[in-house]
């Protein structure tokens, strides 16, 4: 395999050529943690000073995601939903190889069944407390998705996938997009612009939690759907 060897040498040269400017550029930056690093010298201070008050959530990351940069987050929710559509479309034509028939050990089985409800409760806690604690829609959503995947590892994936009808799965996966679009349009009468949250604290809190729940449930269902599609268990 002489060609392969030549390719590896060429790649090594390329990577070394890439390494020099990257490393050089990195040491020119202010050291990480310095207050004059680019991330701290521009808009960041404003977000930290007034973000909690204007965005309505003490956890600034949630505030940025759901309020200041809501359009980006809407795009992202669309991205994962589209990714699931694409994966399901391709997986429908992939060969349905037989799955591993070996059952997991009874200990693993028992522990996962025991943990399932606790993970679900923790995920819900993370979702609805996203505005005060670390967490939020995506973080709780991926926990929900991980729980569904974990359960389908010990139970039959098909059983978990069929716990909800195929039609309902599609609606669940679209929850994030639908709730987000709804709140975005509600921003027009309530705040005067798209994706705006009202200034009234109680209403804003309700809408924030609704957004987080939508993203969480939608994200979890989409991630589980990605797994079901790839594992060949999605019959929808």
């Amino acid at each position, binding site marked *: 395999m002489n060609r392969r060897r030549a390719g590896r040498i060429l790649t090594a040269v390329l990577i070394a050529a890439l390494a020099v400017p990257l490393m050089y550029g990195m040491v020119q930056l202010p050291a990480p943690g310095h207050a004059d690093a680019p991330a701290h010298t521009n808009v960041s201070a404003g977000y930290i000073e007034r973000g909690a008050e204007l965005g309505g959530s003490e956890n600034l990351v949630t505030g940025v995601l759901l309020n200041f940069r809501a359009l980006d987050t809407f795009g992202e929710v669309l991205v994962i939903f589209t990714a699931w559509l694409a994966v399901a479309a391709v997986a429908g034509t992939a060969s349905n*190889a037989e799955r591993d028939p070996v059952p997991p050990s009874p200990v693993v089985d028992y522990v996962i069944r025991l943990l399932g409800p606790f993970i679900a409760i923790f995920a819900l806690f*993370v979702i609805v407390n996203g505005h005060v604690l670390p967490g939020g829609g995506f973080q709780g959503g991926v926990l929900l998705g991980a729980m569904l995947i974990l359960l389908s590892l010990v139970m039959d994936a098909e059983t978990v996938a069929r716990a909800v009808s195929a039609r309902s799965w599609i609606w669940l996966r679209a929850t994030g997009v639908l709730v987000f679009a709804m709140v975005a349009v509600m921003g027009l009468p309530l705040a005067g612009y798209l994706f705006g949250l009202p200034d009234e604290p109680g209403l804003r809190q309700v809408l924030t939690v609704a957004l987080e729940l939508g993203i969480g449930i939608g994200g979890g269902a989409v991630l589980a759907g990605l797994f079901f599609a790839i594992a060949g268990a999605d019959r929808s």
Partner: protein
Amino acid sequence: MTGSVTAKYREMRVNATDLFDLVLLALLLTCAIGIARLKDLAACAILFSAYSFILCLVWAHRGAPDVAMTEAAVGAGITTVLFLVVISRVGRREK
């Protein structure tokens, strides 16, 4: 109740790079180089899971608990499971 939990989070101030960070970063590099050298794809997937978990520790130590939580669930959990499912279909030996 959430107030006391929030107070706990506020106590974890990050500092400039310390020995703990250096060890974690060295482990990260070890995992990445291990993935580059190993020919067994299943081992690569598990190493990638370990890599994600170490990265998640680094981020938790950097004052980014949100990102660390997501990486722990997505990188170390879901992505690894997806890799393992695919590897169980296509064979674990790399030529």
